[in-house]
């Protein structure tokens, strides 16, 4: 890490350590509290919400490598605020729109929390939505359903992916808009999701992007989400490993600490090996994106595939190595397991990422072959 990155890590780590209480988190979840304005305001004041934006919009102009630090810490501290959700949309969709000059400052101040609404009850909807944006006599109209919106309950707005006569479109809809019926529900990772039915008029300035620009924003959003979900998974896996190591050093059976048993030591060594390998890929995926490397797409997908597999394995092992205590809600380790499970399918699944990796790789091999022929 650079000095700046270390400083960022230390500051964020200190804040989250001081302001995270596991029992308070459980109470908050039990009461279905999906927004804690004072916390979000603190994020804004620390500049976290300004990180991805250019200085011309009063942003801090940080790369994904720095944002991933926050994501990793969100995993470690089981942050329930929709930080990666909001930053991923704002830094790829809102920023590309003509309305960026108005919207981005509202993101930075914490007033606008736009969450992507991309999933629908039909397969493949993430890339080709059945939600429609159509021209009527009285103007634009958005119609359709978006389901299972992660962190949707924490949103002030939805960035809705729709189909239009001009191709894809991103439409910004306030959660309290007339014609939007929004059902919120708790999700298994302690956050709040949403199912939405849209049937409402849309003004020109709500249409953020359309056509090629919308498609481009979608792939940028997906890539960003793959990387940030990988980083958060990494943080959660590391925390689950650390918790397991501490616990096995203390817990005694057969008159000795669990940590003294080789069968368990080697499993923890495997957890470490896999977590470190994942770390390398996550950081490299950030660097590839930040330097706009020709390999950025492959790296993002590699990080997603690896982190999904490792996040699952490491947190499952964490539960097994703890034993019964880890199956209870009052013990922390199961919550890492639940969070990485939620991250597995958010925006892009491991299977989708793997298929896309294969396609990108075939392209790379083909172009290398044609280059070597010439």
């Amino acid at each position, binding site marked *: 890490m650079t000095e700046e990155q270390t400083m960022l890590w230390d500051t964020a780590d200190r804040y989250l350590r001081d302001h995270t209480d596991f029992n308070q988190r459980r109470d908050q979840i039990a009461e279905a509290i999906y927004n804690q304005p004072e916390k979000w305001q603190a994020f804004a004041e620390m500049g976290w919400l300004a990180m991805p934006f250019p200085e011309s919009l009063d942003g801090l102009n940080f790369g994904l490598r720095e944002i991933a630090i926050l994501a990793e810490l969100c995993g470690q501290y089981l942050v329930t605020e929709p930080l990666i959700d909001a930053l991923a949309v704002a830094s790829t969709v809102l920023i590309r729109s003509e309305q960026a000059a108005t919207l981005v400052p509202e993101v930075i101040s914490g007033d606008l929390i736009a969450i992507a609404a991309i999933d629908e009850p039909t397969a493949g909807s993430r890339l080709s939505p059945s939600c429609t944006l159509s021209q009527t006599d009285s103007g634009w109209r958005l119609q359709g359903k978006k389901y299972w919106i992660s962190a949707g309950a924490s949103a002030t707005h939805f960035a809705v992916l729709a189909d239009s006569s001009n191709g894809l479109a991103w439409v910004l809809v306030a959660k309290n808009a007339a014609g939007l019926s929004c059902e919120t529900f708790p999700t298994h990772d302690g956050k709040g999701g949403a199912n939405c039915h849209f049937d409402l008029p849309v003004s020109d300035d709500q249409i953020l992007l359309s056509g090629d620009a919308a498609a481009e924003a979608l792939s940028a959003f997906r890539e960003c989400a793959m990387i940030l979900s990988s980083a958060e998974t990494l943080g959660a896996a590391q925390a689950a490993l650390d918790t397991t*190591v501490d616990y096995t050093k203390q817990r005694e059976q057969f008159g000795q600490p669990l940590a003294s048993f080789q069968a368990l030591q080697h499993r923890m060594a495997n957890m470490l090996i896999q977590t470190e390998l994942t770390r390398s890929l996550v950081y490299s995926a950030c660097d590839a994106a930040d330097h706009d490397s020709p390999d950025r797409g492959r790296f993002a997908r590699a990080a997603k595939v690896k982190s999904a597999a490792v996040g699952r394995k490491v947190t499952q092992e964490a539960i097994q190595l703890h034993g019964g205590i880890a199956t209870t809600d009052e013990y922390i380790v199961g919550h890492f397991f639940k969070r990485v499970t939620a991250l597995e399918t958010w925006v892009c699944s491991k299977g989708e990422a793997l298929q896309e990796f294969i396609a990108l790789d075939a392209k790379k091999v083909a172009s290398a072959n044609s280059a070597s022929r010439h």
Partner: protein
Amino acid sequence: MNASSPLPTDSDAFRTAVRDFLSEALTPELIRAGERTTSVFSDFEAGRQWQSILHQRGWGAPDWPLEYGGTGWDIQQRYIFQEECRQANAPTPVMMGIQMLGPMLMHFGTPNQKERFLPGIISGENVWCQGYSEPGSGSDLASLKTTADHDGDDFIVNGTKIWTSMAHYSDWIFCLVRTDKAVKPQAGISFLLVDMATPGITVKPFTSLDGEIEQCQVFFEDVRVPADNLLGQENQGWTVAKSLLEFERGGQHFTIDLKKQLSKIQRMMSTETCRVSGDPTFAYRVAETQIDVMALEQTELRIKGSLTAGDNPGALSSLVKVSGTELGQCCAELLIEAAGQSAIPWQSEVLAPSYSGSTAAASESVTTMAEYINSRATTIYGGTAEIQRSIIAKHVLGL
């Protein structure tokens, strides 16, 4: 190019210079020896010849300090050199002297020992083997029983060493021997340099699963070794041997070979006649392996970066060893599956660098089966995967 011509320092130009040298210096027979390598070692004579060519160019031991005949290259350049050698199918010489003993001699040797042994190591004239394991002492190395007793100015060595790679070709052996039985095991071990021509030494080779001979057992019966051949202080052998780990750090680049194997798999998948072309289940496994290799490569680079910054990667090298060898086994499995029946012919004569006739196996699969079979040894030698995991548990996780 002659030995004194300077090398460009920027990495593209450096790579080109290395590539130019390799295309000039590698004869077709040397390349064939490289191509038909199925384990850590290439054909012995080809490897020895290549070491001598490298030495003449001044590149006999790129990792050594300049004063002992090294190159003065930085880590990046050494990596490029290794990568280019592999890409060009240069043979691999027997490296125990250069990689293992050399650095220990530089650190612990007397001026006389350095002068006496280092030149023969770097030129390839003296081949060294490593005498660590014994029939009763594998992972528990400190329990070793081969003894060295004082007799005037000499030691008298008795006992046996096993899994001694290339002992049947070696001129010298560096050994761990017990010089004090009264203290705790690690404290009574010394490090001895022994001429293989000394009376009382016999070598029994083992035929490995691939039908080749690399491993040997070495027997010592009243072998007289001058006390001058003690490396480091008496009873400090364990410290000497352990320091090797520090010299080895950052020196292992598994991904160079792994990427080469993966390209071969992908080449095979793209041929229509290949058993696995168009098999999506195979394609998924290859892709997941590729992703794991990318992760390991980025980890190797991360370690290299921390070395440059002066940190000690410590037990991270165990992580790299475990992942690198296990991924190598995974690639070897994918390769035999891609080759299918075309890899069943078992003709060891075709592996000789001088062989230029036809082969019963498909030409791209001549080495596939032997490589797969030999890959099983990689998680056993150099500290088993279990020992590496225990090192990680102890030194990284503090268990």
